[in-house]
């Protein structure tokens, strides 16, 4: 639209045409979503800085492991075959666990902050002046813990482990040792696949109601969203225990959070990962708990989107 600088009569015509032309400058529905996610990454740089920093620290620490590596490899054949992999894989598993843990922590803090922070710093008035619906905003925000962080955790873990493997190989070759045992024992491609499976099943799908709950609290609380997220479930648990001497509610939450059972381990591939781990995607997809959780998550997110419509600066 460049009609502003034109002389009056012409600009008026084109303006009127424009306003009547029912051409609300079409834009694909995914664009506001895409830019809403971009904006979250601009604002919350800890989303990628935290897992990267952990991975960096891990690599620094690994330099000391490298120092001992030639010695480990020389005594390698004296180990029991079952211990061989453990001796080598430990730092790799550790790296995966750390990065995943960092991403999980960031997810929690992000989810509790995102819809609360925009009200506290009044910027919600700016976001609401843009043609982006509350639902798009909430979906963009929940996609950070549900999609962006698991993917980031996977990519960063993969890169970290690859660098570790590369450094190890260089050290071994420099010491005149064979790299073959290292590469055959680690089977990184397998553990990485399990990691990916675990991230998708546990972190994305199984934990979805947790994130949705935290987003709802963050859309609702006027202060201390962290407390509001924890205290009410705790209160319900205590009430149930005292009043009915039962722990159904607490069990429900702990089961959901920890996975816990052996059945759960094979459904979501719990940490630490082993190359030969038994995984059962069929059992996971047919578990009623999965679908129940997803329905709860959808309801909580819808409530959060609706709540945001009523909310202004605090």
């Amino acid at each position, binding site marked *: 639209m460049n009609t*502003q600088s034109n002389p*009056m009569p012409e600009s008026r015509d084109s303006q009127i045409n424009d306003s009547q032309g029912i051409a609300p400058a079409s834009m694909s529905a995914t664009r506001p979503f895409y830019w809403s996610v971009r904006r979250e990454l601009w604002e919350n740089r800890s989303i990628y800085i935290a897992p990267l920093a952990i991975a960096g620290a891990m690599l620094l620490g690994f330099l000391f492991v490298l120092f001992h590596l030639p010695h480990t490899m020389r005594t390698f054949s004296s180990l029991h075959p079952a211990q061989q992999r453990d001796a080598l894989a430990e730092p790799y598993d550790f790296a995966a666990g750390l990065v995943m843990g960092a991403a999980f922590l960031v997810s929690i803090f992000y989810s509790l902050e995102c819809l609360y922070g925009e009200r506290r710093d009044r910027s919600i008035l*700016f976001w609401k002046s843009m*043609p982006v*619906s509350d639902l*798009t905003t909430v979906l963009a925000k929940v996609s950070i813990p549900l999609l962006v962080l698991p993917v980031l955790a996977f990519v960063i873990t993969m890169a970290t482990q690859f660098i570790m493997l590369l450094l190890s190989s260089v050290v071994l070759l420099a010491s005149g040792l064979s790299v073959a045992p290292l590469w055959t024992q680690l089977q990184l491609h397998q553990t990485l696949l399990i990691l990916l499976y675990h991230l998708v099943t546990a972190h994305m799908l199984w934990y979805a109601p947790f994130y949705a709950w935290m987003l709802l609290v963050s859309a609702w609380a006027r202060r201390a969203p962290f407390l509001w997220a924890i205290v009410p479930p705790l209160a319900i648990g205590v009430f149930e225990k005292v009043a009915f001497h039962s722990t159904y509610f607490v069990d429900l939450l702990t089961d959901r959070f920890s996975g816990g059972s052996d059945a759960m381990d094979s459904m979501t591939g719990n940490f630490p990962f082993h190359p030969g781990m038994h995984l059962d995607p069929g059992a996971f997809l047919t578990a009623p708990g999965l679908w129940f959780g997803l329905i709860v998550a959808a309801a909580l997110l819808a409530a959060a989107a609706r709540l945001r419509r009523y909310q202004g600066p605090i």
Partner: protein
Amino acid sequence: MTVIEARGLRKTFGATVALDGIDLHIEEGRILGLIGPNGAGKTTALNAILGLTPYQGELRVLGRDPWTERDQLMRDVCFIADVAVLPRWIRVSQALEYVAGVHPRFDRAKAEGFLAKTNIRLGNKVRELSKGMVAQLHLALVMAIDARLLVLDEPTLGLDILYRKQFYDSLLNDYFDRTRTIVVTTHQVEEIQNVLTDVMFINRGRIVLNCSMEEVESRYLEVMVHPEQLTAARALKPIYERQSIGRSILLFDLKSDLKLDRVDRHQLAALGEVRTPGIADLFVAVLENKPGNQAAQPQGAVR
């Protein structure tokens, strides 16, 4: 074409009535000043228009229900709700990118053109900018959007006079044309009175006066009365009287139906110096004259 149409617009917060069933009819191409004391209901009215708050009564903005269709409405409506709502962490370049990404009617080159006239650089973060520069940035973003309605709620609060003047100058010169509509609230009434085409006084959730600036000029007169003429002037029933530098200033409503014999300009000119009252003085006069209820709506609506 009607931009805003409201009937019986009402909003309460608990026992407090913020909007007491007001009617609005705002046509395209007007610049309406919404004037009222703190807590009069201005911001509540604007929030209802922008879809930021639920309300009772009928309200249509550009034919849409703002409460249920805010996101679609925002393609054609822009607002600056306050001086400091731009997120402090955002970079100027990111703000441009974001708006260009989500807003189908945003012209990025135009926004950059506006910014080039300021000291704001694309690499700056909002938190590094002064309050006045943040307002400039927000205005640049908004003016580059080809919207049909622009709502400004105290857009220059806390800015120094240079920035305030610049703000309204660029709004008038670079933005406004007769197809756009602007609704603005501010406490610095005198600064915008030359900008407005229409004025609406609002008090305690009700509209007290609602007319065009031409009507204000033809209807209200302020006379700085010669001391010896004071008794004669008072006999003509001014709606308000105040003192200024030892002189009495009387404000007359030429169309008031309270008067039996109509006062005319010539009559008043004989009593002292005659001029059109400032909006601020008129506001005080109208408000003190009609305390609270009994809303006077001479023309019913803004033309």
